[in-house]
């Protein structure tokens, strides 16, 4: 028995037919869910949206090791770009979401080019992302042409599929579901590619990767582009879902925290981590919000507590814990 090396363990990773069938069944069940239990559709949509953004953060933070403390920047950009395009130029959000994605990528590449060129990493990268998010927050707060601090309302048009507006929540449910499944699949595939391994090499040892010929700048830029573009698209869907955006709920610091806390708790650098984190945290947030309506921040107290406990006792997040349990079960 030879020790499994990193290379073989990656090559052997594939899913058996059984697993594919289970995934297929789960997907069918998830498609039936809004009809079966319509009461929880809102919570599940939020789970999917935050899982997808968590996945986007995970590509940059979990896999490539660049922890962004300002991912609300891309989320807010996505929400504002599509909304402003619709309100000022009448462009449908279906085109808006693509432009959002592209502008997210462009902004991500701009910040990436600045910070990775100068070798910014660790807390410095976290802070520069925070600074950019905060600058956009201040601009949207102070500039009345983009709504100022009251924010922007998207006028209600009833059931207007061509404007990404629906009277029922179901279409958003399917959109969020497929964004989530798509991001999951993307990252799962990416993990096994050369680029995916380059991500890990940058995270594990930036200098060694560079010495071995990995173009670390390019690798970080790719991670940034995927992460930013995906987050911006969710921003657009979120804006269309709520039909209202304001600077605090989009570019605010708390939103960055919301985005990053799920993959961190679920297990950064794992495919299922962000989804697991979102499944655990999102209902907690929504339920606490209902229970303490006037104290809207109380659920963040739980987040804080869970975050501290996970960091102290489960350094690899909930996924790490599950893996440990599975290993134990297999051995015993």
């Amino acid at each position, binding site marked *: 028995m030879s020790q499994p090396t990193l290379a073989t363990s990656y090559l052997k990773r594939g899913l058996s037919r059984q697993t594919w069938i289970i995934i297929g069944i789960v997907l069918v069940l998830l498609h039936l869910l809004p009809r079966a239990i319509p009461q929880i559709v809102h919570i599940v949509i939020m789970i999917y949206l935050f899982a997808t953004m968590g996945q986007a953060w995970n590509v940059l933070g979990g896999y490539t090791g660049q922890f962004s403390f300002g991912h609300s920047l891309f989320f807010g950009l996505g929400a504002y770009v599509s909304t402003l395009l619709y309100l000022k130029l009448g462009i449908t959000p279906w085109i808006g979401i693509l432009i959002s994605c592209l502008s997210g990528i462009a902004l991500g590449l701009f910040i990436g080019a600045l910070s990775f060129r100068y070798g910014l990493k660790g807390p410095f990268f976290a802070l520069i992302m925070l600074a950019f998010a905060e600058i956009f927050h201040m601009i949207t707060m*102070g500039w009345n042409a983009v709504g100022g601090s009251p924010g922007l309302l998207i006028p209600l048009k009833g059931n207007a599929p061509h404007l990404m507006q629906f009277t029922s929540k179901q279409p958003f449910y399917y959109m969020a579901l497929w964004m989530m499944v798509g991001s999951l699949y993307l990252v799962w595939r990416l993990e096994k590619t050369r680029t995916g391994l380059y991500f890990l090499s940058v995270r594990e040892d930036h200098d060694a990767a560079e010495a071995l010929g990995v173009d670390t700048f390019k690798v970080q830029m790719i991670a940034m582009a995927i992460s930013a573009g995906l987050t911006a698209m969710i921003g657009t869907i979120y804006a269309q879902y709520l039909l209202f955006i304001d600077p605090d709920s989009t570019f605010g610091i708390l939103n960055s*925290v919301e985005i990053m806390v799920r993959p961190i708790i679920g297990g950064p650098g794992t495919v299922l981590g962000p989804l697991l984190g979102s499944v655990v945290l999102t209902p907690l947030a929504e339920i606490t919000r209902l229970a303490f309506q006037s*104290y*809207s*921040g109380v659920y963040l107290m739980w987040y804080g507590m869970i975050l501290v406990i996970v960091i102290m006792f489960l350094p690899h997040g909930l996924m790490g814990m599950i893996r440990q349990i599975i290993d134990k079960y297999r051995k015993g």
Partner: protein
Amino acid sequence: MNLNFVLQSLLNGLLIGGVYSLIAIGLTLIFGVMKVINFAHGAVMMLGMYCTYWLFVFLKVNPYLSILLVIPILFIIGAAFQKFLINPIIKAPGHNQLFLTLGVSLFLQNMAVFLWSPDYRVLKTHYANITYYIGDISISLSHLLAFGLAVLFASILYVILTRTDLGRAIRAASEEPQGAMLMGINIKRIYWISFGIGSACAGVSGAAITTFFPIYPYVGDIFVLTAYVVVVLGGLGSVLGAFVGGLIIGVADSIGAMFLPGAMKSILSFIIFILILLFKPTGLFGR
């Protein structure tokens, strides 16, 4: 825009800059020793403000006098935070400590929301009404006192760091932890002491502004964001840098406020922040 208006804004900026300095000194001290960026610093400052507030409301303690109580309280909170939460994972990869302080910050801020409601509270004292005039320029006593206290405590800390054995040990531990350990310095003790001192700095800054600044659970966010800017500008780990940086950012904010709408006044300082991070991440006084 006349000269008096400009001088008035610059003076106000300079005075609030002193408070930024003291907050940033706490942050930079903790970073210098432990290489941890403490995201809970703002929450700790908020606790300092509430301490002063409740001492005033229940015991009628003069807000400036309460600083003498705030210092030990916040020192103990900070030291305990380090000892029980950060120390167990001090050897883990750096981002874990970052996330841990973030978690503590979320917990403390929202605990404050839960216990004391998210309402803005104002501490009404006669200090807020006293204003001095030099020509046409007004100086409010509460701003002046906050600045004075910040400078006073920054100087005390500077003397402690440069003139006492404890201070030398702290500086040794931040420059060369291995070497300091070999010289018989108890690094773990230095860690919790510096965290305590850093938190006390945040607490004092919070207490010093209660007479003219509203008190609410997320109040720390505004100040601590500025404090990161200050700390990076002055050079992470440099106490002198944090002091000078605080004054510079205070003035930069007031210049921003002259040209930009209120919500955008800090844009200038954030642009300085990004430029410093990119072109001179060691800051003005960093090595």
